[in-house]
């Protein structure tokens, strides 16, 4: 009877395709996946951005371990601040340029490209955090800490740039010829500006990388 009950219960509640898919997805897959619908959903994008920044903070905290104490929190915040500055300052500015050029890229699409880029960069930095922690704690010289720290941030920045460009490429292709010419200049200019901004923020907010110790 028990067996029958169990069988009945299993037959009554077969997992739906969505549910089964949900179970099979890894954490990273859920983080990097697009919205179920074609249109971006603000809550999903904000959550993705938050997780990306949180993972980035892990890398910063790893760098802060060299000094310890409050520096762990300062560096955790500092690492996230670089990406947050790009998302909060550079991307809105870029959206105005896109609107001026009449590019067929709306705010939700831009938000999705940004959140996915930050999530990818954050995932890479979060994954590298244990290795960075081992380096900053075990090496005596400051140059190695700078190389490891900026190396990790440069890698993450490259990943974010690549992701962002790829997301917008399809929209670029759909634009008129005049708009495409404008975007050919505007997009690289934005990427250079975003990179410079992030590096400047990291330079100021991550003192352990500038060789102070």
């Amino acid at each position, binding site marked *: 009877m028990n067996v029958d009950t169990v069988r009945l219960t299993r037959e009554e509640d077969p997992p739906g395709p969505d549910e089964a898919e949900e179970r099979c997805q890894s954490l990273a*897959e859920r983080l990097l996946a697009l919205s179920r619908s074609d249109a971006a959903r603000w809550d999903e994008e904000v959550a993705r951005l938050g997780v990306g920044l949180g993972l980035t903070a892990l890398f910063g905290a790893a760098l802060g371990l060299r000094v310890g104490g409050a520096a762990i929190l300062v560096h955790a915040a500092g690492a996230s601040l670089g990406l947050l500055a790009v998302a909060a300052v550079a991307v809105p500015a870029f959206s105005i340029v896109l609107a001026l050029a009449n590019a067929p890229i709306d705010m939700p699409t831009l938000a999705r490209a940004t959140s996915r880029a930050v999530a990818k960069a954050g995932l890479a930095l979060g*994954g*590298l955090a*244990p*290795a960075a922690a*081992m*380096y900053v704690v*075990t090496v*005596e010289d400051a140059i190695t800490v700078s190389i490891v720290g900026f190396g990790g941030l440069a890698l993450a920045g490259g990943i974010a740039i690549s992701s962002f460009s790829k997301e917008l490429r399809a929209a670029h292709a759909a634009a008129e010829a005049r708009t495409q010419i404008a975007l050919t200049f505007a997009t690289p200019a934005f990427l250079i500006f975003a990179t410079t901004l992030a590096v400047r923020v990291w330079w100021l907010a991550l003192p352990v990388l500038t060789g102070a110790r």
Partner: protein
Amino acid sequence: MNLHLVNRILRTPADVARDCRDDRDVTSIARSALVAILLGSLLFGAAVGSWRGGAQILFSGGKLPAVTIGTLAICVPAFYAIAAVFGRPWSVRSVVSLMLVAGARFALVLLAATPVVWLAIDLGASYDLAKLAAALAYALGGLAALTLLLHGVGDGPGRRTTIALFVVVFLLVGAQAAWVLRPYLGTPGADDVALFTREREGGLVYQLWKSAGDAVRPSRAETR
């Protein structure tokens, strides 16, 4: 340790890598791989430590498994993240088992090299020759593990970048972990046997930087 699985790791790495990726029987795979890593690196470490002899055999035999397992543990999150970012969002279980199997292949090559290294040392190999033999065994082990990882990563976009980034991270972490726990052979000219060196020599990257600088400007090295 499941000898059938060990045989599969050596002969058909692509099949084992596929099992790891597809999350098939990974618990058993991971358990056997872990035993292989411990056994292979322990015996190889002991053989390397026999150059100095005495307590160094025990120290090196204990430190090498710690370096290998520690490196794998630190690299797991990096591999998980790198694979996911470049289009391979696997489960943590798959990544851990894949890493352990690669580590097992590496350790099994070390196990094969153990008698050779031990015999060379027993026949009176110099410090440099013993160091070279150990480095060669490590390089061969690394290549064997890399072959398995190449199968594990599979085809598709981002394959080369994933592998290249992972190799860089693994080499940097492994080298620093080994550097922190040195010495393994023992210090030439020193009579006492030390578990860890007390000399402050910076880190591995710093030493490489310094050596490169000395090579470019030999006069700077002479004045030191």
